[in-house]
């Protein structure tokens, strides 16, 4: 076998916020750094982030990193690692000001400082009252961040490999990472990127669900590659959902619609929220609304041919109010739901938004296999940052604006860890593990040679429907158990996926098939981890986890204050303790999470 090999000090898979922040660190240190991306860097999914990035700058009112830390631990429902959370919150002001110096056009106060606004869950004085902590660049924070980081990387001579898809991670016989196998889309040529240090910053995997706010590119490639290479995935049962996305499309319908008088109805036309929340009704909190919607669907009162969504009705509102108070909603509804909300209700469903779990790392971005702590059993030469990694700062539930912060802080810290590691490595790269490379090449060959196999689109849709129905925003014991069996059946289908187009040049069908092989790893990890965790915590909410004085909201600290580690091999689950030892301050003690 003759696969060309390219050599670098560092190879980074992913050119979103996390990948580019890390690359900058490495390139500015003079190291030869390659960044591989499926799409042009500024079209990475980070572009979708509008809300902002959090940092306790205290520009508009008093703030402190320790308060930010408290909010993040509480938001995580105590599943976040407190060493990593302290690190992130302390670093936040530094990395945000650095980004400003890189040319990020933040909104400003009259005195020239960065303007900050309040955002859900961010409070002052240990949970007392909302604080202004979110820094934004109009409604284009993610876009502006990518732009600033890209310009800076070009200046620092980072080498971008755009329209390349990484296929597999290469580990040697001792498990150390040697680089990745990747495919150039233009030619389908397979090339090895060998490096002293490898970072995954491949973003989220929201496309495992039928309804997702994520762009099509979020297929969890880094997680699939890691799992195939024997790296476990951490806390994959935790996914954040939004109650009202357009069914079948995923585009969000803002909560303001219910605020203006929108009513949720089931297939009988009933205003079902009256039964679940007699006082707040349609304005109950996100989790209550999501839970009611799912219960209606599960009990057979869903709408549409598949009875898989409910309706958001604003037909009783004055069209003038719809146009003036809810700008854009009519257009979104017509364009993505095919209905004019002035005349007919909008089909909606709880929609997947953000993945809290991922490749297990510590706050230095090092990938950790240990089941006891975050600093032993480190995979040499392997790092992960951003949404594909689990540091774990978001625990069971992420606070808004903490994700862009995560990209900056852990992108930078992993870059620094890589620099330190690369310095310890001999100049000549070691011999490559050819068996690992051959397995990757064989995977592509299997796909090209498959006859009488499964259609990619059908298999993907079977996976997405299974995840949505069995492992959505609100979970039931029996549904989860059936879900495990079903997702393993889908996996069997995916083993024989076939593509009709076998051409070499920009073969989108082949790329989508390879992406599906990554998605299914994430789907299995999610379903199996969720089935095993018999408590409710943060975004993982189970019907059978009872709210008792010992286990408020169904959270069972005695048995479940621990991280899940799913192994692809045998679908085995391990657990590791949550870090409750911050770096310099006292632990934030366990409490019931209520706002």
């Amino acid at each position, binding site marked *: 076998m003759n696969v060309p090999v390219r050599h670098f000090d560092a190879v980074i898979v992913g050119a979103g916020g996390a990948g580019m922040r890390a690359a900058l660190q490495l390139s500015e240190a003079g190291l030869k750094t390659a960044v591989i991306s499926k*799409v042009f860097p500024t*079209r990475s999914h980070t572009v979708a982030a509008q809300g902002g990035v959090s940092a306790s700058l205290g520009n508009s009112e008093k703030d402190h990193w320790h308060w930010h830390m408290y909010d993040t631990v509480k938001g995580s429902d105590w599943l976040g690692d407190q060493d990593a959370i302290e690190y992130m919150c302390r670093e936040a002001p530094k990395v945000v000001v650095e980004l400003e110096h890189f040319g990020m056009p933040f909104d400003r106060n009259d005195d020239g400082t960065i303007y900050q606004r309040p955002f859900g869950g961010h409070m002052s004085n240990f949970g007392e009252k909302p604080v202004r902590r979110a820094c934004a660049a109009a409604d284009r924070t993610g876009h502006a961040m990518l732009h600033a980081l890209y310009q800076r990387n070009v200046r620092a001579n980072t080498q971008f490999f755009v329209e390349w898809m990484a296929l597999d991670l290469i580990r040697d016989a001792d498990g150390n990472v040697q680089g990745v196998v990747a495919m150039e889309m233009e030619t389908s040529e397979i090339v090895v990127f060998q490096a002293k240090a490898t970072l995954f910053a491949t973003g989220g995997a929201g496309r495992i669900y039928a309804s997702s706010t*994520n762009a*099509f590119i979020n297929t969890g490639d880094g997680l699939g590659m890691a799992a195939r290479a024997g790296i476990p995935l951490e806390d994959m049962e935790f996914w954040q959902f939004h109650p009202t996305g357009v069914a079948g499309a995923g585009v969000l319908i803002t909560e303001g619609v219910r605020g203006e008088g929108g009513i949720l109805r089931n297939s009988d036309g009933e205003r079902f929220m009256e039964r679940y929340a007699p006082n707040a009704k349609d304005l109950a909190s996100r989790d209550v609304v999501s839970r009611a919607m799912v219960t209606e669907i599960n009990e057979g009162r869903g709408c549409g041919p598949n009875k898989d969504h409910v309706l958001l009705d604003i037909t009783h509102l004055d069209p003038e109010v719809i146009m003036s108070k809810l700008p*854009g909603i009519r257009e979104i509804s017509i*364009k993505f739901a095919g209905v004019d909300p002035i005349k007919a209700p909008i089909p909606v469903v709880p929609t997947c938004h953000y993945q809290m779990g991922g490749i297990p790392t510590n706050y230095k971005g090092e990938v950790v296999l240990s089941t006891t702590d975050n600093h032993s059993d480190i995979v040499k030469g392997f790092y992960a940052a951003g949404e594909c990694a689990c540091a774990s700062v978001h625990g069971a539930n992420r606070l808004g604006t903490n994700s862009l912060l995560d990209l900056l802080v852990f992108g930078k810290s992993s870059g620094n860890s890589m620099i330190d590691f690369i310095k310890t490595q001999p100049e000549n790269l070691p011999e490559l593990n050819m068996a690992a490379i051959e397995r990757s090449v064989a995977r592509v060959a299997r796909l090209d040679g498959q006859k009488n196999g499964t259609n990619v689109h059908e298999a993907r849709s079977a996976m997405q429907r299974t995840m949505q129905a069995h492992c959505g925003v609100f979970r039931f014991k029996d549904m989860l158990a059936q879900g495990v069996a079903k997702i393993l059946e889908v996996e069997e289908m995916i083993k024989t996926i076939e593509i009709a187009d076998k051409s070499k040049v*920009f073969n989108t069908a082949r790329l989508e098939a390879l992406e599906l092989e990554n998605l299914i790893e994430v789907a299995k990890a999610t379903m199996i981890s969720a089935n095993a965790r018999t408590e409710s915590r943060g975004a993982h909410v189970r019907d059978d986890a009872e709210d008792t004085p010992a286990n408020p909201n169904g959270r069972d600290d005695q048995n479940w204050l621990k991280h899940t580690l799913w192994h692809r091999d045998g679908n085995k689950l391990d657990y590791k303790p949550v870090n409750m030892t911050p770096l310099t301050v006292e632990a934030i003690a366990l409490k019931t999470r209520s706002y």
Partner: protein
Amino acid sequence: MSELIDPIEKKRVRWRSRRGLLELDLVLTRFLAERYDQLTPDEFAAYVRILDLPDTEFLELVNGKVETDDVTLAPIVAMLRSV
């Protein structure tokens, strides 16, 4: 007419129609299914130019928040708005 468009270029542009924003993915998927194969070379060239826009500006053009004053882009913008 469409045979005048380089088939390899067409495949490349199909991949470039994958974007960072879900709304664009949804619109472009329909566009690729319903209109892409019938584009004239001029329309195709205009589409390629639109794809060079940052996603945020591209979306505003597609959902009618902004208008283009470039007459050569107008037909393709109209098509994207109608799918």
